[in-house]
């Protein structure tokens, strides 16, 4: 072995040692669980029983006999479907604070302030805002004479889901704004100047320059919005725990209940597979909508 080869082997050993701990963690907590979920979903299994192959039975039960699954699925889709509203609001705000506005940094900080908060605490804060007697929202509605009786936002079948979604908007708005601001700042200024020289009106500049060049950032916001329906577990758990009935049940809360409430790990795994497929399908769909090359964004 020459000196160079020995040095090369030593370097390879070093690379392996340095990478191993991280790869081990990702194997144990990302890759293995993904495969295990799929395996579990085709078996009847609980911690005390040996696994038995049952084919698609878990999926059949879900689709044919499980109303809660359909509730959870439609609520999840509504949750995701509302994300564009928050993204549009965030876009308006980022256009306002992007330019030469004095104090823009302060506005940005205030809008972003709710994002790093503990979601459980956000849930408790909003529960309190919606409260019938001590809550700010009912107080304003009643003082302004819009309602006579206090509104039970979180106990109402119709209002519970929108109420939770509003709380979620409050937390995530700042994150959308930051993503869109990063996108806005990467648009070359000379495009606007050229358009102005040519006499292009403001709304056309927005539609022809800003919006098309912002597509990758908007795609990112949509992906964040889709993932947000997974991470909103914390919010739902403290605000409504899926209730009233299953009016605010999301797939993620149902997975938790099936897995750790009823110890049906096999069924929960099948639900997870459906949720993961939903995530992939929606992401691909959003990517198509945004022009198909948004994944190549790499600064």
């Amino acid at each position, binding site marked *: 072995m020459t000196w160079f080869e020995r040095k090369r082997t030593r370097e390879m050993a*070093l690379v392996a040692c340095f990478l191993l701990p991280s*790869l081990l963690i990702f194997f144990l907590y990302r890759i293995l669980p993904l495969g295990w979920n799929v395996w579990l979903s085709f078996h009847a299994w609980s911690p005390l029983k040996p696994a038995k192959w049952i084919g698609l039975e878990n999926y059949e039960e879900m689709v044919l006999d499980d109303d809660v699954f359909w509730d959870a699925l439609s609520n999840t889709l509504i949750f995701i479907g509302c994300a564009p509203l928050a993204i549009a609001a965030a876009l308006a705000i980022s256009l306002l604070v992007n330019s030469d*506005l004095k104090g823009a940094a302060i506005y940005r900080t205030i809008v972003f*302030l709710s994002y790093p908060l*503990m979601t459980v605490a956000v849930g408790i*804060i909003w529960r309190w805002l919606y409260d019938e*007697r*001590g809550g700010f929202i009912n107080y304003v509605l009643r003082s302004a004479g819009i309602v006579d009786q206090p509104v039970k936002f979180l106990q109402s079948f119709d209002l519970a889901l929108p109420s939770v979604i509003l709380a979620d908007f409050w937390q995530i708005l700042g994150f959308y704004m930051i*993503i869109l601001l990063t996108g806005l700042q990467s648009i070359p200024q000379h495009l606007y100047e050229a358009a102005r020289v040519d006499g292009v009106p403001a709304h056309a500049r927005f539609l022809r320059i800003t919006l098309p060049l912002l597509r990758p950032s908007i795609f990112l916001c949509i992906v964040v919005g889709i993932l947000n329906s997974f991470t909103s577990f914390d919010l739902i758990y403290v605000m409504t725990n899926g209730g009233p009935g299953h009016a605010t049940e999301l797939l993620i809360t149902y997975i938790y209940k099936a897995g750790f409430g009823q110890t049906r790990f096999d069924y929960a*795994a099948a639900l997870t597979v459906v949720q993961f497929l939903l995530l992939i399908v929606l992401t691909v769909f959003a990517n198509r909508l945004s022009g198909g090359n948004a994944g190549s964004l790499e600064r």
Partner: protein
Amino acid sequence: MRPPSAWPRHVIMIVVSILMLIPFYWVLKTSLTGENIYAYPPRLIPADPHLFNYVDVWYLIPFPRYLLNSVIVSAMAIAGSLLFNVAAGYALTKDFPARRWIVLLLLSCMLIPFQATIIPAYLITSWLGVLDSWLGIALPLLSTIICIFIFKASFEAVPRSLIDAARVDGLSEWRIVVRILLPLSKSAIATNVILTFIWSWNAFLWPLIVTRTPEMQTLPLGLARFLSVMEDTTGALYAFVVLVLIPGLAIFLMAQKEFIRGLTSGATKG
């Protein structure tokens, strides 16, 4: 581009800011008041502000225990992720045969949301024998892909000549990382520390699954438990909320730039 006046924009942004700040004010107000918080109409300004509720938090619930658990879990996650992410980030700056595949593997791992892994992740943690322990709660956060790439980019920005010179001087690889690269990567370190802190401090679903005994519960679990036990009849709950939010807010306000940089680089790469 320049509208005739900035005032309309200021007015809109001031209204937006007030709307965004109301929830903060409302919870702070409630935590400071001694009156019956369920009386209608609620007061906009606390009549007789005091800190009794904050004292109550220490006596009504095992707050110090929750705090200890949260601090230890966050400290473990921060220390572990710094060590492993720096090592992995450095390894990826080297040239080796499977490099492209490993980068691809890491990028695709980033697409798997942690929430989609909870059932098997629980079984794996149980098999490892670390359920209901600090290590069990911190384990999935011990290495984070976003931060590996942030370190890789930061290390690659260091001039090769500097590293070669250190190697000629006989420094070992690990020493090159600690003595040369890390001092030049302060911003990457800050991003890693802040993101890992926020993630571990705020984590709820995973600790909820992994912990069994009240002694191992972290602050978010304590908060949810307090809510269900007390059925929000007391202002102490809101004092608890304020106490729990302070560290995250303080860190965010102190290191806004690093925090936002970490989030956006994570978002754009994910």
